[in-house]
């Protein structure tokens, strides 16, 4: 691991800018995921599914607050400016309300997986405020990933119009999230000195969605 850092003064300007952008994008995505999950958690077809969906909503909102805090800390030290959650930093498709339960499943399967890939790239980063939060978030994301995959597989296995509808939504979500990942990949590439792995995030997302 690179030398441990706890304050942004230890980072060069380029690394600071990339870190703020990456963390801001993850926080924004999680904020909207949490809101949408909360709006649709009662839409799950089973009681256990609804309770787990509500739990996921709570966890995503918690992650968003935590990562926003990291970004705000950086921004406040930079220029004394507050940064709130900027929805323009989230995938475009996530800025619109869900149309139904199938959008919940598609969002969890695609967008949540994408953020998990970014978190994994930062799991050993030398910027301590980020690393500490990433590890806890990944523990909870393990359950999110199982949930999303199980529901997606079950619904695709229904066949007929349900399968067709979900496949179309998964394709739409993948296209939008891949576009969102492009600047995130650039941020990861610029943060190698912090021990953040340069991930081919879009390629990895496609691999996980196909597997």
């Amino acid at each position, binding site marked *: 691991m690179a030398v441990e850092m706890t304050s942004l003064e230890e980072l060069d300007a380029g690394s600071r800018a990339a870190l703020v952008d990456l963390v801001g994008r993850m926080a924004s995505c999680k904020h909207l995921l949490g809101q949408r999950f909360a709006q649709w958690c009662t839409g799950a*077809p*089973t009681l*256990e*599914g609804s*309770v*787990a969906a*509500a*739990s*996921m909503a709570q966890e995503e909102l918690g992650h968003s607050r935590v990562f926003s805090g990291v970004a705000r800390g950086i921004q406040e030290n930079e220029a004394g400016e507050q940064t709130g959650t900027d929805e323009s930093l989230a995938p475009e498709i996530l800025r619109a309300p869900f149309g139904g339960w199938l959008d919940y499943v598609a969002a969890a399967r695609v967008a949540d997986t994408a953020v998990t890939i970014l978190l994994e790239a930062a799991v050993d980063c030398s910027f301590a405020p980020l690393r500490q939060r990433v590890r806890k978030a990944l523990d909870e994301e393990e*359950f999110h990933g*199982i*949930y999303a995959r*199980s529901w997606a597989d*079950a*619904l695709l296995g*229904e066949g007929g119009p*349900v399968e067709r509808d979900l496949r179309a939504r998964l394709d739409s979500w993948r296209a939008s999230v891949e576009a969102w990942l492009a600047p995130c990949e650039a941020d990861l590439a610029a943060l190698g000195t912090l021990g953040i792995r340069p991930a081919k995030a879009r390629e990895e997302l496609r691999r996980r969605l196909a597997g």
Partner: protein
Amino acid sequence: MSGRSAPLPLFEVFARRQREEPVRHIGTVQAPDASMARVYAHSLYDEEDWIEMWIVRRTDIVTVTPLRKGA
């Protein structure tokens, strides 16, 4: 879920709060498989800060003494 006719398997949930306690039965979840049963147990039974939690598929439980008639 639309079209599903067979009921989902039942999983019994066991947990404990401290090492000094025995692991005890705390509830049941219904899920398509063990992976999802883990997810559901984790989110449904979060009222305590459990130090350990297990799930066991009900059909994997081996009866030692069957329920006696009249008991």
